[in-house]
């Protein structure tokens, strides 16, 4: 899986891209430090922290006891005092224990202090699915954080963006919730070498189209891209928007896209109800009331927790096939063509099982 160095053409995993982002930031600014559980353990958070302790010295990596609320409060205090801590949570669920610190002291210190305090803190959290993790190890909870002004909430989908946005998040003087989908760690892409920043400034059109706008986040963007590919072959041109940043929320590019396409599909990694899709649809409706030519479609998780068994999850996650089917409906595409597109997605997936991001993936995490 490792980088095949070919200059700017080199392809690495998103996990390695994150490791590079941290490494570059560490080299540039020694007020940065890592604060995580198992910060120097061999698994090193799925490789994203590998070797950083050895390279920069142990006092740049601080082992975090199993005490998330205290840990985030400590990181906030260190940030207010001028350091730049980077916290990593192996699962978003662990961050729930620190929710009070995150939404009060992290999100509001700048505001309450009338601008006298800054909280340059990055909190990485892993969301998503995988290998029967079950109801308490695979939730996607980004709307909980996006609800709070004062936080920045980012969700990269591509390796290069993950590195650039992480570096930007570390340089940012605000608390940044940096959300990684577990399946994305295995995804690969071209990633530039060295220190570079990708602005935390909102959505990007990652594929242009004119018939339908698909707005997605994180791993959902990859599903949307797959869907767009096969839709293209049946003559449907989908525009795919990678949200990237949920807070502060910039809906302008989406409004512009929908004004062009007249059709909207949103893809949440979390629940449909009270999810990002709700905010997107509502924002579009209030800003361009008559742009839509058909009812918007919100995809995401149904109203129940994530079961562990692979027997219970077929149909649970919104995937490229769901997107193609919904696009077929709102664009009234010829069913024969839609079926051929679905067929092609089947073929692409081969015998990869529903709980595997990748053929080599065999658990146990």
């Amino acid at each position, binding site marked *: 899986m490792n980088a095949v160095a070919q200059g700017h053409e080199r392809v690495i995993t998103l996990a390695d891209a994150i490791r590079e982002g941290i490494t570059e930031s560490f080299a540039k600014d020694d007020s940065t430090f890592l604060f995580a559980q198992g910060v120097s353990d061999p698994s090193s958070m799925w490789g994203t922290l590998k070797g950083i302790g050895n390279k920069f010295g142990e006092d740049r990596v601080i082992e975090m*006891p199993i005490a998330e609320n205290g840990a985030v409060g400590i990181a906030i205090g260190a940030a207010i005092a001028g350091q730049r801590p980077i916290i990593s949570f192996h699962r978003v669920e662990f961050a729930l224990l620190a929710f009070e610190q995150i939404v009060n002291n992290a999100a509001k210190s700048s505001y309450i202090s009338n601008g006298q305090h800054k909280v340059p803190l990055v909190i990485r959290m892993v969301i998503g699915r995988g290998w029967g993790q079950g109801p308490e190890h695979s939730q996607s909870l980004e709307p909980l954080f996006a609800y709070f002004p004062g936080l920045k909430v980012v969700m990269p989908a591509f390796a290069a963006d993950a590195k650039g946005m992480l570096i930007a998040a570390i340089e940012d003087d605000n608390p940044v919730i940096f959300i990684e989908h577990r399946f994305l760690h295995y995804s690969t892409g071209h990633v530039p070498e060295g220190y570079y920043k990708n602005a935390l400034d909102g959505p990007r059109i990652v594929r242009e189209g004119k018939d339908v706008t698909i707005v997605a986040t994180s791993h959902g963007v990859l599903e949307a891209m797959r869907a767009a590919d096969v839709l293209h072959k049946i003559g449907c041109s989908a525009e795919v928007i990678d949200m990237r940043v949920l807070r502060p929320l910039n809906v302008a590019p989406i409004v512009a896209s929908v004004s062009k396409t007249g059709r909207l599909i949103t893809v949440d990694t979390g629940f449909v109800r009270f999810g990002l899709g709700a905010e997107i649809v509502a924002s579009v409706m209030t800003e361009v009331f008559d742009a839509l030519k058909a009812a918007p479609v919100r995809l995401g998780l149904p109203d129940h927790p994530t079961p562990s068994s692979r027997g*219970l999850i077929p149909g*649970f996650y919104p995937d490229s096939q769901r997107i193609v089917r919904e696009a077929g409906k709102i664009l009234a595409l010829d069913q024969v063509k839609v079926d051929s597109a679905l067929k092609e997605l089947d073929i692409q997936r081969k015998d990869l099982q529903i709980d595997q991001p990748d053929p080599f993936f065999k658990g146990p995490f």
Partner: protein
Amino acid sequence: MNTVAAPRKSLSAVGSPDPKRQIDLYRQMLRIRLIEEAIADHYAEGEMRCPVHLSIGQEAIAVGACAALETSDKVYSTHRCHAHYLAKGGDLKRMMAEICGKAAGCVGGRGGSMHLMDIPKGVMASIPIVSSSIPVAVGSALADKRMRNGKVTVAFFGDASVEEGVFHESANFASLHKLPVIFLCENNLYSVYTRIDERQPNRPLTELAKAHGMHAAHGDGNDLDECHRLSVQAVERARNDQGPTLLVLDTYRWREHCGPAFDNHIGYRAESEFKDWEQRDPIRRYRERIGAALDATMESTMSADIMAEIEDARAFARATPLPDPGQATRHVYA
């Protein structure tokens, strides 16, 4: 409040149990060991598609503690729940089916290995968020005390769990209200790959109880009789309204934190450390203590029976169907 204080079989077992009982306890440990090894041996086959946290090396604590409890007593466990589930009498077939994600699993395939439960046997829940089960166990004891039903609840947890504030919040409340609950800390020295001295200052874990005016005891978690004796004493205190106990039992996890393999080679702990603890294998030690009372033929039938039971359970787990996807929407609400 007074609690029912009927004589309990467990109490008779203080000191060293009679040979028959010893053999039974030995068998329970051996059974758990062989089940865990079977899970490890077959994990790579890809039938068990969820995390597994094996308790190989820690069997004496589960068996010693649960032997001090009645079926009507309760336990709450963590991500590392197999031994507790089995020692408390949890159904093996339904455990294996759960780990394989089958409809016949103890929670219908919804939880996997980290969420084992068997209510009729008093295995109330296993919760994989560190320490999250501790206050729930205390609440269970609060309810039992209100209902004056004389039940005792054991909260099993690891050495990292005491770092979570909620452990202290739970201990403060349980001590204040003298609740019939036992805080059982299995100190296996590690949280995942991180040693306790990187996470906690150097002081005896029993000092944690002082913060909350709570009774505490410490013992060798690889000595079944000691685990049992200390548990019996803690249960007695609980039943007699003398309040909770923090029980700290030292032990060691033989395999990787999560998964089937050994991992002494990856560098977070020394092979020699593992070897030392292997010498203190709770099962071999207890076998020696029993001595001739268990003869060769008895022993081989014993393991043969256990292996047959395991094969049976594995066959059942393989054969029984996956849940129907349509089931996934059920039980969101009671």
